[in-house]
């Protein structure tokens, strides 16, 4: 397996463990071998290297999920277009026309909504798909070793494919309204990364919990549904009263959506800095917690699943 590829740097460290390690590295014509020690509660020292060595598996799993996604559906890839388009229409009517909420500057309301929906759909599909990923791939988990982190992260790639399609739709809508983004759009990739990290944090945490306690399977759809209304998807976060704005930004999705609008809406949408930094801090903290919890429990997945 890739993880067991010879790692000279690793050997130098493990060589100190026992004389055998030194001996095997001294054999002429053979590359040094890695010594693997399995022990209860032992943290994997080469975890991140392992992860890198399994990048091809990551790519294969992501590719599998993408290619299987719309198999045996009648309209296939059109599902990726229909869903966000209809949501946008409904939100524009409810928030823009019925509730008459103001847009950011001169931005047409559908564009505002769609720019918020882009990161929201990315966030919510990673969160819900990743949380179930270990359970749905239980046959793999029970029969083969690989860093388990690969499975929920491969899900993010599928979400990114849908995201790319949505981005194309947004471009079409913007062209329809004759709305041009300005230079800030070059920062978009950064915010895409931020959106993925913001969703992976809670996703990893819940994935690990979901293996042990399947209750989370029922909680996730609820969080996603709830979050759609709590986060500024159908409206601009500038609508939130100034006194509450900072606390509102503790929802990490707020920072992500604001960032997207700042990039895409050509300077019409302002970035509320203290709030954005708070969102950023929450994203980092949750991601750290998520990875830590996931790594702590992943070795027992096969026993619990």
């Amino acid at each position, binding site marked *: *397996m*890739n*993880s*067991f*590829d010879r790692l000279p740097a690793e050997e130098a460290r493990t060589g100190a463990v026992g*004389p*055998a390690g030194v*001996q*095997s590295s001294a*054999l002429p014509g053979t590359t040094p*071998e*890695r*010594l*693997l*020690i*399995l*022990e*209860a*509660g*032992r943290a994997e020292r080469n975890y991140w290297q392992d992860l890198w060595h399994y990048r*091809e*598996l990551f*790519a*294969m*799993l992501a590719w*599998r999920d993408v*290619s*299987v996604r719309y*198999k*045996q559906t009648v309209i296939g890839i059109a599902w990726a277009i229909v869903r966000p388009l209809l949501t946008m229409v409904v939100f524009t009517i409810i928030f823009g026309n019925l509730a008459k909420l103001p847009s950011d500057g001169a931005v047409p309301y559908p564009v505002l909504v769609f720019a918020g929906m882009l990161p929201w759909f990315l966030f919510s599909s990673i969160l819900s798909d990743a949380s179930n990923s270990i359970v749905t791939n239980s*046959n*793999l*988990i*029970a*029969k*083969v*070793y*690989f860093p388990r982190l690969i499975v929920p992260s491969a899900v993010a790639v599928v979400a990114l494919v849908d995201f790319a399609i949505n981005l194309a739709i947004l471009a079409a809508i913007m062209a329809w309204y004759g709305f041009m983004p300005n230079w800030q759009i070059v920062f978009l990739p950064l915010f895409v990364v931020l959106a993925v990290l913001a969703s992976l944090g809670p996703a990893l945490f819940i994935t690990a919990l979901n293996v*042990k*306690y399947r209750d989370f399977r029922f909680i996730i759809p609820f969080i996603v549904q709830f979050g759609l209304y709590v986060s500024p998807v159908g409206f601009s976060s500038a609508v939130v009263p100034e006194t509450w704005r900072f606390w509102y930004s503790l929802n990490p999705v707020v920072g992500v959506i604001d960032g997207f609008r700042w990039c895409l809406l050509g300077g019409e949408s302002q970035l509320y800095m203290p709030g954005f930094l708070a969102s950023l801090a929450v994203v980092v903290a949750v991601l750290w917690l998520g990875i830590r919890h996931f790594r702590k429990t992943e*070795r*027992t997945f*096969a*026993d*619990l699943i």
Partner: protein
Amino acid sequence: MSDVIIRADGLGKCYLIGHESERERYIALRDVIARGARDLVRSAGDMMRGRQLVAGNEVEEFWALKDINFEIRRGDVVGIIGRNGAGKSTLLKILSRITEPSTGRVEIRGRVASLLEVGTGFHPELTGRENIFLNGAILGMSRAEIRWKFDEIVAFAEIEKFLDTPVKRYSSGMYVRLAFAVAAHLEPEILIVDEVLAVGDAEFQKKCLGKMKDVAGGGRTVLFVSHNMGAVQRLCNQGIFLEDGAVKLQSGNIDTCIAAYADTRMGQISSVWVNSGDEYKNSVFIPGSLSLIGKDGEPQAQAIYEEGCTVELSGTLLVKDSDFAVAISVYRADGQRLFWSSVHDTATGQRTIPPGKLRFRVQIPPRLLNEGNYEIEAVAYLHNRRYVVAPGSGPRISFDNSLHYTSPYWDKSRDGVIAPCLPWAVEHLEVERSSARG
């Protein structure tokens, strides 16, 4: 020292299992609600403390492996044998890093590839070609490696024509062939294989065994679990015999191990098997008893070479299904399967067995089995669909076969798997002079 490639030191694995304690004699709604509330509080507490949820209200530790010590050297081909539940699969799971040990440690040097199941990760919607790449990646091959061996894999699996068909349209035979073909082309330093040869038709099994032998002969270390003692004997040069989660015997000679295993097994299987009431619960066919009967219809533990014997299997069929059939397997004492025979063998067209209590009888012909100890296992299945009572875990009986000496030349058990008595003819074409004189 450098030769030791795997070393296990005081290895143990513990699982938590739950039981239902004795229920109250009267079940009132009040009790049910009270118990429900108590359980909820308990599992909420468990969750808060991050503990595993266990069904039932009594938790017990179960040690699947306890204090396992062994060393395996480079190039060894080790057969791991033992009864079901002896801990073989748990050991392999620890060695292939799927689960971590509860106690002790293992040191492993080199690339490990494990094959605990054929076709892990196959996706039914993907084509054969796509699944080769997917499965290869899952087993740890790089894409370049798979591309390099692609033609070889396809040729081995004999599925050239169906390469671009989704595997959900494959026959089960094709599926297994493709899955094994990918696995057979792994080239790790340590290969861990769990009972994967039990699938596929005989010819393909032979081919796989040949391929495995090549792997073993190539100086790689192989750990091999199988109930097929014939395969273990042919492949392995070392043996580890597990019993109840402990190493009963480790030997550099596989035959010693197999003999020890065969000894313990024979003592435990009686000549009559009767369902204790809750065994083999399923919705299709529940076997009731299995025995060997003599001419008088009474159970017996001894078969006589000259007379053959009759195997009787009774049970209850719960569904009407034209695919349903039962079969018996006959095993030699070392676990080698001699043959198997299905009730469908004599059917000329579709035959539907009506549901109800059934009794099957099958005659093992006289003058066939060698002297020795044999086992018979009953199997039930839905033809081409699934096993109801699967081979390897079906009810078993054992019996002795004794030779009845009709010929003075035949005075002991013979070399060879079976000992048929075949009709010979001797004709004098020309009488030789020298012998005629004498």
